[in-house]
């Protein structure tokens, strides 16, 4: 019964998406000033659709919670003996369930904007909801026709086949939902951009409506990527935190587009400039989300994130991509020329700096996109290649370095027009820090160019982030500005972590007999013993390693080599020792013939700053949302107060104009 309710809710939601689309489209045909009678269904349809999609998802979670083995998806991905938390998170640890989550978030965003957004003209709103309904409809069709999560088995399974052990981790509880909410939250920006383009209403009001959605999606993406990176770092046991894997790139590309978008939407809101460019980025950001979904699930690229791949599903998503991205770009090409040009500005102005960094972000996006798709291109000519850090690192740094330099001074410039000489003190200060740090570090040792530049830039950016506060009364600085300061400082912190990890990491791979000692960095580690241990659904070989720093009190680390039995798979569980200035990372490998054990140890100075920085960036985004929403509320209140006063005056028979 549970599965049938879920399936019925999904079909109904799909039907409502049709209604939302048609009714929204009628809004476009409304005459000036009055609403088309058929247009009134769009908002309620969007809200109802969100509720139904939510219901469908809840039903699937329920089926997983009670391990209903007559449902094919549960039987294939769960197991009655699994801990409860992993039963629940297992709902989205597979293709069908994660697609349902995707669609659920899509419907939820559509419902929220239908419910709360009242500032836009009804025609634009109708077009926006129509586009949102059209996008949702395609993904409902995909779920219902080719990836039905509620499919029953003719005969219930006796036992489920279990969840991939790598996914049996608390990371799965947070990482996919936040990331999906981020990806799909961008669908609202997409729909708004299309709506504004269709009605040619690209103006600051539209930008203010779009901004919280972009910010929200961007915060979630930032958080999701940060969490995903840390998860991969400790769970895969490879000691790295970013692998330029296609799936990682699939999350980075929407983030880059959203970062560019949130800066250009700020320019549009404040200065009414960059109209076409903002629309383009709005389309691009969600297109990148959909492209990522396609790359991951069609199997055209090989990745460590092995979703159950199926060329037929791939073909289905490709058709959807053609409809949405192709359609959006076509409308863009036809309509964008008709959008009136926005305000002009000089190159040395805050807008100028933002445009420059927008272009740099787009260039990095192009670099990542090219690197991700390049294997696909060469494979068409039967050449198999894999593109990795030797391409991505320098190619993206080429654009990231100028971007960071401009980012340091951009917020100090005035809008519209400014002279660079006004901020020459700040520029000289930052240049001195940059050169000083690079000089100091290269004096103490030989390091690769990129980490060296990274350390210098991180120091300069760290100081630059706070310069916009100079000479201002701190209590009067708007919350949104604090958000910017924090996010920019987070970039500096993260960059410092990356550069430090790149420059100073020490690695030791040794075969150690029990009782033997080895050295890595300041640490001495002693292999005390290697014992078998057992968990709820795994057994493992666990090493007890005593680690002491500079001869201090020893701490025990217990890395494991685990064997899960449902399904049978071996994983390596790293052990981490976190100190304020870095992390010690231990992995146990195979036993050598003579009874010694392979132990791999890394000392990674300040590696944790990568993720602290990511959190700061996300937190900065949260502050910006709070600040913007508060200002909007105040403005709305002021407007409604004004309206009331005018109504009162009219009631008194006074002409409003005279009373002013």
């Amino acid at each position, binding site marked *: 019964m549970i599965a049938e309710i879920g399936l019925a809710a999904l079909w109904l939601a799909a039907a409502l998406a049709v209604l939302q689309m048609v009714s929204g489209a009628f809004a476009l045909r409304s005459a000036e000033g009055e609403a088309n009678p058929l247009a009134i269904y769009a908002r309620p349809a969007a809200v109802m659709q969100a509720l139904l999609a939510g219901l469908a998802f809840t039903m699937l979670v329920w089926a997983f919670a009670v391990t209903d083995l007559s449902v094919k998806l549960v039987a294939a991905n769960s197991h009655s003996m699994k801990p409860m938390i992993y039963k629940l998170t297992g709902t989205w640890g597979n293709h069908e369930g994660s697609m349902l989550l995707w669609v659920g978030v899509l419907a939820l965003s559509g419902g929220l904007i239908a419910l709360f957004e009242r500032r836009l003209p009804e025609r634009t709103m109708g077009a926006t909801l129509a586009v949102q309904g059209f996008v949702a409809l395609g993904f409902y069709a995909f779920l219902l026709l080719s990836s039905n999560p509620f499919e029953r088995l003719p005969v219930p399974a006796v036992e489920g086949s279990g969840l991939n052990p790598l996914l049996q981790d608390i990371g799965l509880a947070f990482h996919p939902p936040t990331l999906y909410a981020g990806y799909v939250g961008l669908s609202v920006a997409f729909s708004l951009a299309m709506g504004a383009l269709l009605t040619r209403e690209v103006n600051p009001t539209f930008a203010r409506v779009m901004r919280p959605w972009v910010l929200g999606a961007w915060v979630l993406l930032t958080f999701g990527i940060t969490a995903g990176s840390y998860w991969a770092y400790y769970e895969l046991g490879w000691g790295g935190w970013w692998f330029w894997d296609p799936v990682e790139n699939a999350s980075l590309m929407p983030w880059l587009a959203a970062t560019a978008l949130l800066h250009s939407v700020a320019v549009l809101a404040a200065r009414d400039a960059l109209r076409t460019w903002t629309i383009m980025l709005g389309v691009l950001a969600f*297109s990148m989300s959909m492209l990522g979904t396609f790359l991951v699930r069609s199997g055209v690229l090989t990745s460590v994130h092995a979703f159950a791949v199926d060329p037929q599903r791939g073909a289905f998503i490709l058709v959807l991509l053609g409809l949405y991205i192709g359609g959006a770009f076509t409308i863009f*090409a036809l309509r964008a*020329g008709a959008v009136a*040009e926005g305000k002009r500005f000089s190159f040395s102005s805050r807008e100028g700096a933002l445009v420059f960094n927008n272009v740099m972000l787009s260039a990095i996006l192009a670099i990542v996109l090219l690197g991700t798709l390049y294997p696909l291109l060469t494979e*068409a000519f039967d050449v198999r290649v894999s593109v990795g850090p030797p391409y991505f690192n320098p190619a993206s740094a080429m654009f990231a370095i100028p971007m960071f330099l401009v980012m340091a001074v951009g917020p100090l410039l005035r809008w519209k027009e400014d002279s660079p000489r006004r901020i020459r003190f700040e520029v000289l200060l930052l240049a001195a820090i940059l050169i000083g740090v690079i000089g100091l570090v290269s004096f103490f040792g030989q390091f690769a160019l990129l980490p060296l530049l990274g350390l210098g830039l991180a120091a300069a950016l760290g100081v630059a982030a706070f310069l916009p506060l100079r000479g201002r009364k701190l209590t009067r600085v708007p919350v949104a500005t604090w958000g910017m300061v924090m996010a920019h400082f987070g970039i500096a912190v993260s960059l410092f972590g990356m550069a430090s990890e790149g420059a100073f990491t020490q690695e030791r791979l040794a075969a150690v007999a029990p009782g033997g000692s080895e050295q890595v960095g300041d640490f001495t580690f002693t292999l005390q013993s290697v014992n078998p241990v057992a968990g709820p659904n795994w057994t493992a070989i666990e090493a007890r390693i005593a680690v002491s720093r500079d001869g201090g009190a020893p701490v025990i680390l217990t890395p494991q080599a685990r064997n899960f039995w449902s399904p049978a798979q071996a994983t390596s569980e790293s052990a981490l020792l976190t100190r304020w200035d870095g992390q010690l990372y231990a992995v146990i490998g195979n036993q050598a013939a003579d009874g010694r054990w392979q132990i791999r140890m890394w000392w990674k100075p300040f590696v944790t700053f990568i993720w602290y920085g990511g959190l700061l960036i996300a937190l900065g985004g949260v502050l910006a949302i709070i600040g913007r929403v508060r200002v909007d509320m105040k403005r709305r209140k002021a407007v409604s107060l004004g309206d009331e006063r005018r109504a009162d005056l009219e009631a008194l028979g006074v002409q409003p104009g005279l009373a002013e």
Partner: protein
Amino acid sequence: MTDKPPSKNTERMDFWLWKLPLGIWLWAPLALFAFFAGLAGYMLTQDKTEFVESAMIGQSLPDFALKPAFDGLPGAARSDLVGGQPRLLNIWASWCLPCIAEAPQLEALHAQGVEIVGIAIRDRPEDVANFLARHGNPYTRIGADDISEVQLAIGSSGVPETFVIDAAGVIRYQHIGDIRESDIPILLAELEKAR
């Protein structure tokens, strides 16, 4: 275009890219996407092999000498695979489920007079003995490869895999995954070709 001439400071950047007709800029995203969609569509229709083929096919076996995997049979070295008739080199392990599935097919090949040399990957002597007692023993020799050194040297990425080695010690053919009924004639033909 505004009707006022732009002031000196608000002049647009005089960059050659800006001088291209606007239409090119507006249609470029669609063109790029169309190219990608065409490429992806083409690739989706292509068969995709998930297997990593060995780069060692057509090359001479690297030198190795492995100790016996258990007491019942001798170990395996490169010299055991050279000379006389072509042989099969079977990479397997007692902990590998598909290896159980392919055991009857190896028996069948053995019954047709094919010499099969085994290499047991990261295995224990007692497990190897148990496996052979339960699923049959088609091997003449089994070497113990505790650290996958031979496996990696001949370009095998998993278990089970089976290689055809000719009399000169050259790797002629690689079969990835368990041997099914339908694979037996293929392997026999490859052995015949290697003769």
